């Protein structure tokens, strides 16, 4: 069954509908983040001081390093999909687990920074605080969704590879690459006042 699923996937002439469904979903998410980032810069250029007085400038080094680590997890996720296409299910699982470990570490450290910021200034104190926490919170939520998809795939691959699971892995890899592109855009937006 696994070998057959991998062979069928390799012989596809067109992308599966699951991939197209993820592409449409990614387009809606890009719209969401486009509006959030547009809002951020609209507010930035209509406010005389950004961030406002009393709010500390955003940290730069820690978010950039964490984002670099997160972006690097695109590699094991892509390795997982390529391995599954060649019917190397265990390698695919291991690559996904490696990605999950790094992503979990990223999320824990980012949430710690998030909570520190919450203690420093309230989301309802200013337009800066409001868009800052909304943007970061939305991105962290997308990381959580990606991790849940990967964890689900790791569990499903225990009982072998099917065409359905292979399409799921392909769509998840696509989603994860998108989340990483978003991560770069979001972190550059986040640290921009300190640059």
């Amino acid at each position, binding site marked *: 069954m696994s070998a057959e699923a991998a062979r069928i996937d390799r012989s596809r*002439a*067109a*992308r599966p*509908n*699951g991939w*197209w*469904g993820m592409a*449409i979903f990614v387009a809606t998410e890009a719209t969401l983040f486009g509006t959030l980032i547009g809002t951020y810069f609209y507010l930035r250029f209509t406010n005389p001081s950004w961030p406002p007085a009393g709010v500390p400038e955003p940290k730069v080094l820690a978010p950039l390093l964490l984002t670099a680590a997160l972006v690097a997890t695109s590699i094991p996720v892509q390795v997982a999909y390529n391995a599954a296409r060649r019917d190397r299910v265990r390698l695919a699982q291991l690559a996904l687990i490696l990605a999950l470990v790094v992503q979990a570490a990223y999320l824990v450290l980012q949430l710690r920074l998030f909570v520190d910021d919450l203690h420093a200034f309230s989301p309802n104190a200013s337009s800066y605080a409001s868009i800052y926490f909304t943007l970061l919170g939305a991105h962290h939520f997308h990381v959580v969704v990606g991790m849940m998809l990967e964890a689900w795939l790791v569990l499903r691959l225990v009982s072998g590879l099917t065409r359905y699971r292979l399409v799921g892995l392909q769509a998840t890899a696509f989603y994860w690459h998108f989340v990483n592109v978003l991560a770069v855009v979001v972190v550059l937006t986040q640290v921009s006042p300190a640059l």
Partner: protein
Amino acid sequence: MRRAFGLEFLQWYGLLGAAIVWAAQLVLAYGLTVARCGAGGSFGLSLDGWEVVLMAVAVLLTVLAECAAVAVFLETRPIEHDGPPPDGRRHFFATGAMVGNLLFLTVILLTGIGIVAAAPCHQS
């Protein structure tokens, strides 16, 4: 051949038409508001009139997109949503587009009505 081309066009128009129309309405409506409220004066524009025209055109194009999605859905009805391409993909797109276009229609109407109903040229 002509059927395939027609379905392909209807598929993409049904899927993307309303989204593009909504984005265009957003940008053009913003431009109209800036032209009306900006420091350069109103340029003789009746904001409400232009907004209503803009909304009407956007609604028309969105309804056409919905019709395109329904047409593709009916044409590919025997195919399952995860059937082989291209008809399987068309059926899948049409199913999603029929729902999505209704949401875009609502957003376009609310955007247009909101601009006309709200007093322009001051912070909300």
